């Protein structure tokens, strides 16, 4: 097993400690923005803290990934190292799946248990005494306490923008796979074209999603504050959107790296990891389309 001799163990590295400081400052800044804001105090300092933390994080990401890419180009990574990266990325995606599972769980719980109970059905139907006359419906267009949580007038029609978005994302999953095959065949021109197409589709998706949010807030009164429907809707689609943006960023960086001549037909795990992530984002969207928009 000659590969074991080449398993690369880096010497000291400054990036993790920079990452720690960066993440700590970002999180502290974010928390300060919220706490100071709700107390009605100035949030300028908190925003500056948050910005500084973000800059440190950006610097760290460039530096850390930069050194990993350099080590890879220097031939320090064995096939065994490649397997480590594959395990690492797979389990990272699994952790993301579990993160979304928590929010899907909240949605299912609200629909199957909490709302019917509040409406007087089932084992805990006596909850209806809290707000007598409350009718259980889904989508929830009348909240138990409409003064505390004004309900949305309407919900997003799944067969307009969301359907278009579904088509966009599913197509992008397809285009990124075509790009991957092109990379494996060594056809760089085709690779660039299809990867660029993927990124364009991704950006279109993000744009339409933003348009949908504007509609929800301005026309439908569907907001974070409009009860459990708005809560689950915005949390699920919002976190998904954030992941789409992150995935788009990954794909864009892959495109830049490809322009610089990185990756070979055999060795391109960076690209593959980004495409795995992209497929994951796509699958989550299909779950959203079915359970948040249609059903």
């Amino acid at each position, binding site marked *: *097993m000659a590969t*074991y*001799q*080449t*398993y690369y*163990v*880096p*010497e*000291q*590295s*400054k*990036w*993790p*400690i920079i*990452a*720690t400081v960066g*993440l*700590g400052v970002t999180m*502290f800044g974010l*928390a300060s923005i*919220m*706490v100071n804001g*709700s107390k009605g105090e100035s949030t300028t300092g908190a925003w500056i803290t948050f910005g500084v933390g973000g800059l440190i994080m950006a610097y760290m990401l460039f530096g*850390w990934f930069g050194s990993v890419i350099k080590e890879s180009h220097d*031939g*320090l990574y064995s096939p*065994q190292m490649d397997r*480590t990266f594959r*395990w*690492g990325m797979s*389990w990272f995606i*699994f*952790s993301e799946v*579990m*993160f979304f*599972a*928590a*929010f899907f769980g*909240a949605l299912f*719980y*609200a629909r199957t248990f*909490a*709302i019917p109970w509040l409406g007087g059905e089932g*084992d*805990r139907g006596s*909850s209806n005494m809290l707000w007598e006359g409350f009718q259980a419906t889904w989508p*929830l267009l009348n*909240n*138990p*306490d409409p003064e*505390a*949580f004004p309900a949305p007038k309407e919900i997003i029609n799944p067969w307009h923008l969301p359907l278009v978005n579904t088509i966009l994302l599913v197509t992008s999953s397809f285009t990124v796979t075509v790009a991957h095959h092109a990379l494996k065949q060594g056809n760089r021109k085709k690779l660039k074209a299809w990867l660029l197409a993927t990124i364009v589709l991704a950006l279109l998706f993000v744009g339409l999603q933003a348009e949908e949010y504007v509609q929800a807030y301005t026309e439908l009164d569907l907001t*974070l*504050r409009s*009860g*459990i*429907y708005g*809560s*689950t809707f915005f*949390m699920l689609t919002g976190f998904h959107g954030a992941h789409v943006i992150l995935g788009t960023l990954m794909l864009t960086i892959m495109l830049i790296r490809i322009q610089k001549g990185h990756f070979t037909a055999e060795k391109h795990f960076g690209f593959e990891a980004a495409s795995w992530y992209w497929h994951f984002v796509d699958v989550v969207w299909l779950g959203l389309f079915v359970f948040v928009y249609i059903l």
Partner: protein
Amino acid sequence: MSTVIDTHAQDHHHGPAKGFSRWLLTTNHKDIGSMYLIFSFAMFLLGGSMAMVIRAELFQPGLQIVEPEFFNQMTTMHGLIMVFGAVMPAFVGLANWMIPLMIGAPDMALPRMNNWSFWLLPCAFLILVSTLFMEGGAPNFGWTFYAPLSTTYGPPSTTFFIFAVHIMGISSIMGGINVIATILNLRAPGMTLMKMPMFVWTWLITAFLLIAVMPVLAGVVTMMLMDINFGTSFFNAAGGGDPVLFQHVFWFFGHPEVYIMVLPAFGAVSEIIPAFSRKRLFGYASMVYAVGAIALLSFLVWAHHMFTVGIPIAGQLFFMYATMLIAVPTGVKVFNWVATMFRGSLSFEAPMLFSVAFVILFTIGGFSGLMLAIAPADFQYHDTYFVVAHFHYVLVPGAIFGIFASAYYWLPKWTGHMYDETLAQTHFWLSFVGVNLAFFPMHFLGLAGMPRRIPDYALQFADFNMISSIGAFMFGASQLLFLFIVVKCARGGEKAPAKPWEGSEGLEWTVPSPAPYHTFSTPPEVK
């Protein structure tokens, strides 16, 4: 490629860097393991001193030392610090030190990420502990931070607490990924999965649990964050949500979390008992399957923490029976440990003493857990000191005794010196008596109806509380002795041979003591 191999081989002759930068920038699993262990012990003392405040207040009925509000902050912070700051990092530290040595790997699979996982913890706990000094004080809603106590009625510092939890979660997930990648990918040739030491097996499964449930914790605190700051109604029935939803999501994380804290202790004890019985571990394969079964079942039992909250009867029955089912694989493990000792050539050095105490006292905690699992009985026990007694039996003479046993077992390998056996046995007996004195009376208090998380109590509970406090002070003070023993051992003492315990087996004993800075740069052959 050959030049690459050459320069690389040279790298491994480097010793540690000088000064503090060694610790800030290190990628070495032994350095990082030591930092985890030291950090965890510091948090153990911090969380422990909060427990001392609690027990001092409860020494006698009436309010004498602290305000009730501060008492609540103490119980909350004590729990959070012990769970996330003391027990979990201690096991990650052991994993860092021992897994590469046990499987013949040159280091952890992702050494830089390993460093990041560690340093995020001091960062997270800096934020968490700083909430004590914020307006409105630290979180005061118990370590389980149930909504709406933590959302509608929580102090402003709750938001900082949430972000601290996020950072801890990121640290744990990366740690889990690192452990899994190391075990699956860096084993020495010939070490098949079913030849792995039990400690490695338990950590493989623990790492899976970490990656599966820490994101759920992140999800639930994010929902809290939104409810507090952005007007969502996840946990507010007025908007169609449900405070009980909080409990469901929290315990979906919380129950596997219990096993995250105890499975590595199972693994360590499964190393130590055979070593001091001078026999192979009885029923290795069944031990592996039992750990797997416990981990899988741990996902199906969460609602046994919430029988009294009003869940449908079918749910109560399901969670009751699923919980009782866990007793089966756990029983397999306990019987296997006992069978390992049966007709063994036993000796009782400190690691063995702690391990035997672990088996006995953890079983007591398991039995009280079985009592709590019975839904109709739980209606009486719920939120009483019986629950406090139960989980402290599982976590203190369970998880923490497992950590002490591991520490004494591997200290010679880490420091190159034998620890002082007499002092270590003194530490054991003081801890053993202290822990039982502290927590056994809590069973009676709970059965008699004393509720948990209160600073004052009715007069009839006075005697048991005083005994409990005396035991807690004794246990707390004896940990200073442990600190002394470890420092003494690190600074000098009888030189330890490569294999200081004659009955022990495994690759970690094939390298010199102390283990060189870099080990297994070339993997050993395992037959």
